[in-house]
């Protein structure tokens, strides 16, 4: 399969994501420049971490206006798999592809550390290789990672089993310990922790591979429509 890694001005985990899927998972991967109006022939899109457009105004707020996001929205609407990591998650919520918002960490400081995540939803193309309740050790590195949504949205997320991951020990004040959420159609995942940083034993954890491998398995073995329940 082929991943597309979107590069915004200020993305800085783009290469890490590319390296994880190409070197660690041996898949094809292309970079997609932010002013591109087409995603090419990719099977899944990664919105990487970093500081797109300097994160000026608000994290992800400017990136949502870039031409590539129109293509990403179309791709997602058609059932394509999109994973937003860290700044990518912030862009997804700003773009309306995922509900809620990511606000300043409770401690007001940027925080880089390895945290434990519990897998909360296995019924998604990003979590086929994971078990319910399984604990993953993944790095976080963000200043604005506190997940916030109104009560109604939170209830809906829970009811529709769309909370993908929860922090075992909440590092940033996220409501209901939410670390990652799925779109209603389950083909878009946003998460603050970095699976691409835990894809190589040398870096201290390979727990991120399960998420990336789930995408590969989904794309390679199952027709999209069947998996996402769309069309």
């Amino acid at each position, binding site marked *: 399969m082929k991943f597309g890694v979107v590069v915004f*001005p200020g993305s800085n*985990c783009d290469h890490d994501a590319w390296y994880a899927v190409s070197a660690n998972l041996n898949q094809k991967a292309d970079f997609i420049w932010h002013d591109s109006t087409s995603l090419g022939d990719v099977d899944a899109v990664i919105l990487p971490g970093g*500081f797109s457009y300097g994160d000026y105004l608000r994290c992800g707020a400017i990136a949502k206006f870039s031409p590539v996001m129109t293509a990403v929205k179309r791709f997602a609407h058609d059932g394509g798999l999109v994973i937003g990591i860290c700044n990518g998650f912030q862009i997804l919520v700003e773009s309306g592809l995922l509900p809620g918002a990511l606000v300043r960490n409770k401690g007001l400081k*940027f925080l880089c550390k390895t945290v434990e995540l519990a897998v909360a939803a296995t019924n998604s193309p990003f979590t086929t290789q994971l078990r319910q309740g399984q604990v993953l050790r993944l790095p976080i590195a963000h200043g604005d990672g506190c997940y916030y949504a109104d009560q109604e949205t939170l209830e809906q997320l829970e009811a529709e089993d769309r909370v993908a991951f929860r922090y075992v020990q909440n590092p940033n004040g996220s409501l209901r310990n939410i670390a990652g959420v799925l779109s209603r159609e389950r083909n878009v995942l946003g998460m603050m922790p970095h699976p691409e*940083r835990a894809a*190589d034993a040398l*870096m201290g954890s390979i727990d991120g591979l399960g998420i990336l491998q789930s995408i590969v398995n989904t794309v390679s073995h199952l027709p999209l429509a069947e998996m996402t329940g769309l069309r």
Partner: protein
Amino acid sequence: MSTITAELLESHRVTPDEYQHIQKILGREPNFTELGIFSVMWSEHCSYKSSRLHLKKLPTRSKLVLQGPGENAGVIDIGGGYAIAFKIESHNHPSFIEPFQGAATGVGGILRDIFTMGARPIAVMDALRFGALDDPAVGVRNRRIVEGVVSGISHYGNCFGVPTVGGECVFDPSYSGNPLVNVFALGVFKHDEVFYGRATGVGNPVIYAGAKTGRDGVHGATMASAEFTEESKQKRPNVQVGDPFLEKLLLEACLEAMKTGAIVGIQDMGAAGLTCSTCEMGSRAGTGIEIDLQYVPQRETSMTPYEIMLSESQERMLLVAEKGREHEVYAVFKKWGLDAVQIGVVTGDGILRVKDHGKVVAEIPNRELADEAPLYDRRHDRPAYRTVPLDGPEVPASKDLSKDLECLMTSGDLCSKRWIWEQYDHQVRTNTVQGPGADAAIVRIKETGTSVAMALDGNGRYCMLDPREGAKLMVAECCRNLSTVGALPVAATNNLNYGNPERPEIMKQLVEGIEGMGEACRFFETPITGGNVSLYNETLGEPIHPTPVIGVVGLMQTQQPTGALFRNPGRAVVLLGGVGMCEPRRFGGTQYAKVILKEVWGLPPALDMEYEKRVQTAIREVIGTGLAESAHDVSDGGLAAALAECSFGPSGVGARITLDSSLRPEYLLFHEGPSRIIVSTAEPEAVMQIAIRKGVEALMIGETRAGTLEISNRGVTLVMAGVTQLRTRWDEALPALLGVSA
């Protein structure tokens, strides 16, 4: 045109002798702009006029050194067709005035030094010095400076996308009015991708790229202000403001533009901005540069030539491109949304000619400006400055050594720095094999399959007690840190932080420090490939401790890191190098003296460099053969502190240590003699064999075990501590000292 008055010279810190020299070079009086240009280029910061004579004593070459001092950064060969560029630089003064931006632009400046060479920055480390946090008078201010500096480094490095992989942080009252922020950066590239700051090729276009020029930092290198009106002063903050996003774009654009093959030379605009980059690029190439300031992108109106030439606005680059191919360069910068415009041309006359709308406003010979800065052999005929006696008080017998250990482990210098480094992204680029909190950081090089280890060290307290021996100890410790993680130290960069060199007793510290560092670097075969000198770190006549800082890089195979932490109970604990020696005077420089006795005296620990080298060779073999489960060197706080640090792992494994020494307990536990490394191993005999072969003493001093750290000597229990409890105190001490939440 203003006339040059004595007051004007004074405010530009140009001496009468220097002014005569300027007149001789020009064959006439300089105008105001030219005086400004000379004053920054001949400032201590840019010209090293007080230190240059002595810096020549440092070793700068080895088989691996591809580029020594004189360029933007040193370069060494790491094999496989790849090289690394690295350097350390200070941003001390700005960080005191405006901690956040001062530290942030310190990071920005050194990163530009690395990528201007063509290397992609892959690691940053910081050496920080702050005043005491608990001082009743200035503690609040010092705490605010710590928070600001750490936020600034975090802000810039994280957004730029370079991991901050290590560093060190020390608190001492001598830094209260002069905090130190020294930033080290390292980048990687292919041998044939090296770029130099040379304006070659007469007729080639000179291109300005990056951020627009403003009035910020006009004072940066000289503090020239007397001639400005009050109104203009208010507009001119002394400290530059950094934009890491812009720097990230500049990085990508520069590296991409370099790949076009159209760039012949490039230099960043750091200290002394456009002035320094134009004259240095011309001087190195033996050419002249002619620019017209009307083409310089400006973000403020009505800027004078003086201001434009002296501005230290951040995130700017000066490039020389091959004539006819400049559009290839422009296309790349346009892609990244950055300004890139031709502002001038390379000439053959060796003159820096600055025009403003066609009218010449400055005309100075490049070489004389860049290379003929005055060189001073400052007096250093007085004993080095020191504030403490050689002989100290009788060290009282401790009532509770366990309590002493806890006090040490929760003191500013020895406590966990987690609160600091968790604010730094230390993992971006996914190369960090070993990050902050270790003896040395290890970063893998994806391109070669090998790894680079790096560490920073400095010990102002030792250097105050003996500037020469302190500098040698610093080099020895930094090399030991690298050896302890299994790396072979191969090269170094230095940052010399001292007081006012016009005082002979301070100059003596500097000379002794450089000579000591030179001797040790020669001995450990770690040539200095570049660095920085920061002088005049004084407030109200009170200098900082002489604080040379060294950054050493080492090479190693890529492998799972050994780490400092005990992992499993039941392993033998071996003290490589032995218990060591101590005497009253040598105890006066220890953390125990500073923290527990609250009095510093005497001399730093004694160093035997021959023995140190053998210990380092031995530990590298122990690590290389996979015999060690953990390895950690003994330094500040002595053996007991090092054992405690080994016990602070997630597994909660401590040790039961049984010593057999005639040293008094305070010395035995807390003396800071060098050349010692604690190893835990399942194969102690094999470790001992290596030690014997290398001629190094090695003692089996005990066994790891779950839950407690117990140290006894000749049957008497000296220390008994629960590791989880001690670890928690150690871990939470810094936020508590800062009065912030953990």
